[in-house]
């Protein structure tokens, strides 16, 4: 019941006109970047990070939450109409949704995606509301040793889930961790990897690395390939609402997708790819029309879209309660918290109760805004897809440069931005995943600090990580996650 009264208080904050404005703006911007191929929520929030110096924390996080959820809605529009999934989690949506659009059923596909997203997002947010306080309670028992093990688990999860090759995933993660070490060591004040450059002493700016890898790297890769100008935007055909048949075939996949999405997204290992795939194959198996799968089955859009959005809500749980990001976007959100001097984690719910509950309440509000915003305005979003590639990518580079330069007025930072862009290009060309690098950059220093704190407490005894019960269990799970998938694959 305590959660409920907190939530009510959160609503009274979130419905203030000024906060509501930020939420609305966030949803609008989020949908926009979700629709545009090549820029996603991680990048957008990274670009807006410099603003955290100006605006109050609550407004900013409501804005970010809107962007985060909005990008999920917008991404499905692009997948369905253009067949270029903006992110790996909407690959499945592109598969079935685009087929539906080609069969003249774009309207129902968009509708089932939007309504499914709304239902899954709302159920996910309800779960977030009521499970988070429970996790916080147990997390208050965590010491540095437990945190180190948790971060190790998150890192293991990132590498085992993402990418086609373990080696390249590890290289990306390892480089990210090393980038995280750059600068002055917090405990001893030693310079590390600064190579005599004063600009590097503060460490690598998350904004610069993320924007460079995601935006500049993507733009270079697209330019190099030269296919950006192609791609056919399907017409919006059919009614933008579900008929009786559509509702009947959609509601179960929505609920099943939510059921897959939230728990997996909430695990320090999850992400959104796994639940969307699980949901897709489940629907295919349960469907009375399995022959339609591959040719545009509405269940194949409804389930994965719901799973995707429920996972998005799930990802917020470890972030808010433990301070552990499990996706690139969550990692960027984490650095936004830190730039306000707020440390996410169990204490957040006590010390910043107002902020947290306003944020959670605005997630409910955002879902409603997005449902209203998405379907009626879908024609407007489609126009965005018709922006010619040269102007679109020119604009992306311009905004990236302005965001980085505006934050620091430093040419050195602009140079770094382009250098990371080049790195992002090389990684794309040789099929190395980019997300583990950003995760490593942010998790690396955190993991190092908690490891060293834990060792200080245990007087240098390394067994502390294995002998403390919670920490030991988490380590065991991490080890299992490394081993089990490989054993299973070897058996096949």
């Amino acid at each position: 019941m305590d959660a409920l009264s907190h939530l009510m208080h959160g609503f009274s904050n979130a419905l203030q006109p000024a906060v509501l404005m930020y939420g609305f703006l966030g949803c609008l911007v989020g949908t926009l970047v979700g629709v545009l191929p090549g820029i996603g929520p991680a990048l957008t929030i990274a670009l807006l990070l410099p603003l955290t110096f100006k605006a109050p924390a609550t407004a900013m996080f409501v804005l970010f939450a809107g962007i985060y959820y909005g990008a999920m809605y917008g991404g499905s529009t692009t997948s369905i109409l253009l067949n270029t999934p903006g992110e790996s989690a909407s690959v499945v949506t592109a598969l079935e949704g685009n087929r539906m659009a080609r069969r003249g059923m774009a309207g129902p596909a968009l509708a089932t995606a939007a309504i499914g997203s709304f239902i899954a997002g709302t159920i996910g947010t309800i779960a977030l509301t009521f499970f988070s306080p429970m996790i916080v309670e147990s997390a208050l028992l965590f010491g540095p040793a437990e945190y180190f093990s948790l971060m190790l688990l998150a890192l293991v999860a990132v590498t085992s889930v993402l990418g086609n090759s373990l080696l390249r995933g590890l290289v990306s993660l390892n480089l990210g961790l090393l980038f995280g070490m750059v600068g002055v060591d917090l405990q001893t004040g030693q310079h590390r990897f600064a190579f005599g450059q004063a600009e590097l002493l503060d460490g690598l700016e998350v904004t610069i690395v993320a924007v460079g890898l995601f935006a500049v790297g993507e733009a270079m890769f697209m330019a190099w390939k030269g296919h950006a100008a192609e791609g056919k935007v399907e017409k919006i055909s059919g009614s933008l609402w579900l008929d009786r048949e559509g509702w009947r075939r959609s509601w179960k996949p929505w609920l099943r997708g939510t059921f897959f999405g939230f728990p997996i997204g909430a695990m320090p290992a999850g992400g959104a790819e796994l639940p969307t795939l699980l949901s897709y194959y489940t629907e295919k198996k349960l469907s009375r029309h399995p022959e339609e799968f591959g040719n545009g089955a509405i269940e194949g859009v409804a389930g994965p879209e719901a799973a995707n959005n429920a996972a998005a809500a799930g990802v917020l749980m470890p972030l808010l309660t433990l301070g552990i990001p499990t996706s690139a976007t969550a990692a960027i959100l984490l650095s936004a918290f830190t730039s306000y001097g707020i440390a996410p984690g169990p204490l957040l719910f006590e010390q910043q109760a107002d902020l947290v509950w306003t944020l959670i309440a605005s997630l409910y509000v955002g879902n409603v805004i997005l449902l209203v915003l998405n379907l009626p305005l879908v024609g407007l979003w489609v126009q965005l897809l018709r922006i010619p590639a040269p102007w679109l990518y020119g604009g992306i580079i311009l905004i990236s440069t302005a965001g980085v330069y505006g934050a620091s007025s430093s040419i050195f930072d602009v140079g770094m931005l382009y250098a990371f862009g080049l790195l992002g290009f090389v990684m794309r060309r040789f099929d190395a995943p980019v997300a583990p690098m950003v995760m490593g950059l942010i998790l690396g220093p955190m993991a190092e600090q908690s490891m060293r704190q834990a060792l200080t407490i245990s007087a240098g005894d390394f067994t502390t990580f294995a002998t403390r019960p919670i920490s030991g269990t988490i380590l065991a799970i991490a080890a299992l996650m490394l081993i089990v998938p490989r054993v299973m694959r070897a058996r096949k």
Partner: protein
Amino acid sequence: MAALGLAALAGLTLWGAWSIPQGPGFSAVGPRDFPLVLSGTLALLALAAVVQALRGKIPDEAHNPEEPPLPGARARMGWMLAGMLFAPLGLHLFGFFAGGVIGFATVARSFGAKSWPAITGWAIAATLVVWLLFDKVLTLKLGNELLRLPF
């Protein structure tokens, strides 16, 4: 090629990690240990990558059978890289407006825009909008004057 580059990078980080002073030795894990372990791992990974590359196991999008890059990739990359060199230069010497226009124009060109008047027009318009939005509305510091003279 990329694997060799990675190996070189691993060497650099190893050297960089080695040169971090360990400091007074009262803690079990000092400031040098994490970087050292990580760069050691990176060196091993780089070695594995070189082996994989020699066996031809690392995919290169340049030889992607389904969707190879269109001809003229070099020219497009050339424009892109030129922009990344000259945009910061313009930014440094003449302020945000010059840097922005150069950056936008080179990127647009590398995405296949042909007509220079159109490119310049769009570049000027986009830079103005971004400058107004970031400097005036969001009050980031892009430089108060649009054009600055280096002398």
